[in-house]
């Protein structure tokens, strides 16, 4: 398959998947056993029954009294104009809330991912290089154990040790509450200070799986013929590892990272909750707790689209990195 074919195919897949998710998002929230209006009203009025006229008025306002297919069309129109409704709780536009929180999730996921990849690759290289040694076996057991730990628990332990007991880092939020920063540097350093523990948690939670993949990929590469060629040429072990083996092993890693982005999003949700880090994951958690359906629906949609797009980005990176995909295959003698 030629290079442009690879990308075209993927673009079409991405677009259809996003559309499918938009549709699913609509129907998902229509299978509720109870009427969302009841849930909206009850905390406000604190009574079992409500004036049917008020209920009718609210249903009309939310568009819940129209036939389903009309609701669907309105929904589609709203989504494409980025009108995601209004929060039941705060009465602010959902889109605004999401915009505020999106950055924090992106920062957390990207930094956590980078740290995780660095850890996984370095340890993976060492483990594969010294295969069978104590370092290798030790890392294997540690990685396996880490993948069996509940993600929120890891966050809790880190909080307990580094924040509560050692008082080195703050317990929650992105910046000190109620403090206004005099300049950008002060703000950034406070932000980074708050980011440290959640970021480490994200990295620890996902590095185990990546490490195992990296180690396996490298061991696979070591048994390939071209590594034997490199030895016959007389290249030093270090040159063979870094200039011949590593590039080959990193390719399947890109694919794995792409697949695991959804998993990392789940991890982000839990980490954000434990550290009260105001990102989209925490938003979803709060929306569920308070039954704030518009926010829930909006945040869920955005998160899913985010994952799909990141996936796509990773696939593009792979397509550019692997020469077998990048170049048109030429079969001339």
């Amino acid at each position, binding site marked *: 398959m030629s290079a442009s074919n690879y990308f075209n195919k993927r673009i079409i897949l991405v677009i259809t*998947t996003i559309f*499918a*998710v938009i549709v*699913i998002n609509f129907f*998902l*929230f229509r*299978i*509720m*056993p109870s009427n969302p209006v009841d849930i909206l009203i009850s905390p406000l009025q604190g009574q079992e029954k409500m004036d049917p006229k008020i209920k009718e008025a609210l249903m009309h306002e939310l568009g819940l009294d129209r036939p389903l297919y009309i609701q669907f069309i309105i929904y589609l129109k709203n989504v494409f104009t980025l009108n995601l409704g209004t929060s039941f709780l705060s009465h602010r536009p959902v889109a605004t809330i999401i915009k505020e929180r999106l950055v924090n999730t992106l920062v957390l996921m990207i930094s956590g991912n980078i740290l995780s990849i660095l850890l996984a690759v370095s340890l993976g290289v060492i483990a594969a290089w010294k295969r069978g040694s104590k370092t290798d076996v030790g890392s294997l057991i540690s990685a*396996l*154990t880490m*993948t*069996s*730990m*509940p*993600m*929120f*628990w890891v966050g*809790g*332990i880190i*909080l*307990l040790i580094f924040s*509560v*007991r050692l008082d080195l880092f703050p*317990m929650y939020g992105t910046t000190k509450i109620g403090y206004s920063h005099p300049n950008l540097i002060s703000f950034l350093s406070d932000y980074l200070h708050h980011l440290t523990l959640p970021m480490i948690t994200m990295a620890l939670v996902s590095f185990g799986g990546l490490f195992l993949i990296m180690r*396996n990929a490298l*061991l696979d590469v070591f048994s390939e013929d071209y590594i034997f060629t490199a030895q016959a040429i007389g290249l030093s072990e270090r040159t063979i590892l870094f200039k011949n083996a590593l590039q080959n092993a990193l390719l399947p890693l890109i694919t794995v990272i792409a697949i695991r982005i*959804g*998993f990392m*999003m*789940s991890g982000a*949700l*839990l980490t954000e*909750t*434990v550290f009260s880090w105001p990102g989209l*994951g925490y938003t*979803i*958690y709060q*929306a*569920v*707790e308070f*039954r704030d*359906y518009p926010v*829930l629906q909006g945040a*869920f949609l955005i*998160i*899913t689209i985010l*994952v*799909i797009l990141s*996936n796509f980005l990773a696939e593009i990176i792979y397509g550019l990195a692997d020469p077998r995909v990048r170049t048109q295959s030429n079969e001339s003698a």
Partner: protein
Amino acid sequence: MSSSRLTIFRRRLTKFVGQFLESKLGIFGVLILIIFLFTSIFANYLSDYPTKATQGNLKDRFSPPNNKYLLGTDDVGRDILTLLMYGGRISLLIGFLAAFTSGGIGTIIGLTAGYFGGWKEDVLMRITDIVLVIPRLPLMLVLSAILGTSFWNIIFVISVTTWTGTARIVRAQVLSLKERAFIESSKAIGASDLRIIGVHLLPNVFPLILAQMVLGIGGAILQESSLSFLGLGDPLSISWGMILHWAFSAGALSSNYWWFIIPPGICITLVALGFTFVGYALDQIVNPRIRSR
């Protein structure tokens, strides 16, 4: 079953057990699981302490580990060791049921897609791709919010989001089996689809499914703990995730009540690890494509 079939089955079983016992990981995993199963099942014999929230000894709440309470007490004065033992029941039960259901769904979808092919395969595989791409935990949260939280709802929510792995593996296996002569000759004889699937395909695919399910129990236990932690577990039951939920809600973190937080997590980790080891050992035996490292 005829006697010859029985002997073949018994011989296969012995061979399988022999292979399994060669795996150090597998044995270690089984040991861990036996310990936890034992303490869960016989919890009421092993401990006298009450587990209902109303029966807690409020005087003794939040006490660190001591002679009376080996692992300390929770926010309402219940013995944590006892809670852990009983908690194992729900965690293991939900884990098992969810993994079993998930495996079942995955098998049906994988078999149908692989065997029938055509548009059925395309549709099913597209559904699989879409479910795969939606982030799992957020989806579980949305479903829990919509359906409500109860024992069976949790099992439903977990199974409906985790069947994709099994579906893909089963389909791949069916595709490779389909090429083999015995399927073609069965069809030529006139065997019905159901018979071919049930008699020829299923027995061949079964070991793979079993390994997947065992691996899946560990995953399901972790999912349940996450859901419970977030407050979406069955509020009436005790699971390790629920204990952690109570711990965080009661402020155990900021008050440094480590005995409330660390032990439940260790239990979850050990059990998940146990299932991972056993599942891995099984996978080594049944997966035709694994090369030894």
